[in-house]
C-alpha cells in the first residue's frame, strides 16, 4: 500500500506537487495519470525517499521509505530505465543491486530468465535497446519480490510487442495481490492496463476513481442522430428537454434523451432516421475533459 498525504514539493518558486493526497491499494493496477509536468515523477521520487517533501509525507506499507530495512523487499521501482552504467553487464548491474539488499545470485538468475534477458546477461548495457533496458528495469524492480511496485512511464518508447508484454506482466503482478502504481501521460495506454486511476494536473489531484467510473462520469455522453429533417427534429427534441447541438456534417448531437426515446419521438412524427448512435466518451476524451479544464481543477470524483 502507498499512502500520500497532503504532499507538497517546491523547487524554488515552482510548485511541482501541491497538496496531493491519495492511497494506492493492493490487488489492482493503478494508473497514475497526468499531462507532462503534472508532478507524477516528483511524487514517485518523494515516495522513494529520493526527494525530501516541502511538507506532507508519503508512506509505503505504513513506513516512511528511509526507515525501510532492505527496501527492495518492500518496494520495487522503475523510474528511468536508461539510468544505467553503460560499461556494466546486465548480470553485474543486477548483482550489485541484489547484494545491496542481501539477495542471492539465484534470484538474479531467475529474474534474468523471467524477463527473457538470460541470453544477453553478459553483454554490456551500452548495446541494449530501450526495450531490453525496460526489461532489465523490471527485473531489478522484482529482485526483492516486493509487495509494492512503482513504475514511471514504463512503456514510453516501446514497440507494440514490448507494450503488450509489460501490460500483461503488470496485470499478473496485481492479480498476485501486489500494489502496482504505473504512471503515464497517455490515457489510451492506461485504459487497457489500469482498473483504478489517479489523475493529477499541476500537482493537484483531479480524480481518484475507477476506470469505468471515469468514463461514466464524463459529460460527453450523447446520441448522434442523422435525419433529413434535422431542424424540425431539433425543435421537437428541445421541447422534450433535450440539449441539441449541430455537428459539422449536419448531424445532431443529443444529450438528455437516450436513443430509444429519440427513435420513438421521430417515429411519432413520421420523421425518417438515418442513423441513431449512442456515444460514450472514450477514456481519452474523459481524461482531456478533466485535465484540459484549467479553470476548475477540483472536479475530483473522489
Amino acid at each position, binding site marked *: 500500500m502507498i499512502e500520500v498525504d497532503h504532499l507538497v514539493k517546491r523547487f524554488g518558486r515552482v510548485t511541482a506537487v501541491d497538496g496531493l493526497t491519495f492511497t494506492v491499494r493492493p490487488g489492482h493496477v493503478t494508473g497514475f495519470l497526468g499531462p507532462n509536468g503534472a508532478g507524477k515523477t516528483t511524487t514517485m*521520487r518523494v515516495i*522513494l*525517499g*529520493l*526527494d*525530501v517533501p516541502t511538507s506532507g509525507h508519503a508512506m509505503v506499507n505504513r513506513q516512511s*521509505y*528511509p*526507515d*525501510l*530495512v*532492505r*527496501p*527492495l*523487499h518492500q*518496494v520495487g*521501482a522503475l*523510474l*528511468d530505465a*536508461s*539510468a*544505467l*552504467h*553503460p*560499461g*556494466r*553487464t546486465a548480470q*553485474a*548491474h543486477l*548483482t*550489485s*543491486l541484489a*547484494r*545491496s*539488499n*542481501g*539477495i*542471492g545470485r*539465484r*534470484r538474479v538468475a*531467475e529474474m534474468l530468465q*523471467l524477463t527473457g534477458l538470460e541470453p544477453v546477461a553478459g553483454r554490456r548495457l551500452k548495446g541494449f535497446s530501450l526495450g531490453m533496458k525496460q526489461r532489465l528495469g523490471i527485473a*531489478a524492480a*522484482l529482485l*526483492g*519480490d516486493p509487495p509494492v511496485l512503482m513504475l514511471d512511464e514504463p512503456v514510453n518508447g516501446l514497440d507494440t510487442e514490448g507494450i503488450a508484454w509489460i501490460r500483461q506482466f503488470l496485470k*499478473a*503482478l496485481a492479480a*498476485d495481490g501486489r500494489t502496482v502504481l504505473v504512471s503515464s501521460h497517455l490515457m489510451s495506454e492506461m485504459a487497457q492496463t489500469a482498473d483504478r486511476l489517479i489523475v493529477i494536473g499541476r500537482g493537484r489531484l483531479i480524480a481518484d476513481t475507477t476506470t469505468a467510473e471515469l468514463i461514466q462520469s464524463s459529460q460527453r455522453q450523447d446520441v448522434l442522430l442523422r435525419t433529413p429533417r434535422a431542424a424540425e427534429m431539433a425543435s421537437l427534441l428541445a421541447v422534450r428537454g433535450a440539449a441539441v447541438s449541430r455537428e459539422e456534417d449536419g448531424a445532431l448531437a443529443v444529450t438528455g434523451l437516450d436513443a430509444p426515446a429519440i427513435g420513438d419521438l421521430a417515429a411519432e412524427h413520421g420523421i425518417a432516421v438515418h442513423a441513431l448512435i449512442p456515444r460514450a466518451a472514450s477514456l481519452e476524451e474523459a481524461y482531456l475533459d478533466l485535465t484540459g479544464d484549467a479553470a476548475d481543477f477540483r472536479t475530483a470524483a473522489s
Partner: protein
Amino acid sequence: MTGRGMTGPSMTGPNMTGVMARARDVLGSEWTKFCSVRSTFWTLLVAVLTPVGLSAVIAAALASSPGQGADQGDALLPGLLSMEYAVLAVGVLGVLAFSTEYSTGLIRTTFAAVPRRRAVLAAKAAVIGVATLIAGEVVAFISFALVQAVLAGHHSSVSLSRPGVPGAVLADGLLLFVVAMMGVGLGAIVRHTAGGIAALVGLIFLPSAAGVLPAPWGSRIGQFTMLDAARQVTALRPDANLFAPAWSLLVLLAWPAATLLAAAAVITRRDA
C-alpha cells in the same frame, strides 16, 4: 509470478548483527560495481605502471646528472615525483565512483536500494580505499627497488634497513589512497565527472601557489598544502622550515578526511 518467498534472507531487527549484515551488503554491492567496469582496470593500470616506469627513468636521469650522483639524500625523490603523476589516475577513479552514478541517474536506483546514503559513501570509500592502498604500497616498494637498483651503480642508493626509509616508502604508497579518497568525496559533492576532476586538481595544486610568497610565508602556508606535506613525509632529510613528518602526515590525511566529511554532510541534504 511465483517468486514469492524465494529470496531467503529475512529481515533482522536493528541489532548489531543487523547492522553488520547491512554493512556487508552495501560493501558487497559496491565491490561488485567497482569490479564490473573497465575504468577501474584502466585507471589502476595507469596508476601502477606510471610510477614504476617513471621512477626508474627519473632515477637514471638523476644518476647521470653531473655533480649529484653521489647524493643519497635524493634517493627517494624519484619515487615521490613519479607518484605525483599516478595520483591523478586514482583521483579520477575516485571521482568516477559517484559522478558516473549521478550523470547516468543510476544514483537514484542506488539510493532507493540503500536509503542510508552515508552508508553508500562509506562503502565506496572503503572499496576504493583498500584497492588504492594496496596498489599504492605495492607500487611504492617496487619503485623503490627499481630506483635503488639504478642508483646502486652510482653509489647513491639507500637501503631499506636505513632508519627513516621504510616509513618514507610507506608514506609514498599512501599518496594514491589519499588522493583517491579526495576524489570519492569530490565526486559526491560536485556530481559531475569533469567538474570533480577539475576540483581535485585545483585542491592539489592551487594551494601550492603559496610557495611563491616571500619567506617565511611560503613555507608557513605551504606546509598545509598536500604537495609540501607529501614531500615532507617521503623525504629522507625533511625540510626544517616545514612541519615535522608526523604532523605533515596528519595534514596529508586531513585533506581527504575533510573532503569526505563535507560529502557526508551534503549527500543527505540534497535531492537525488
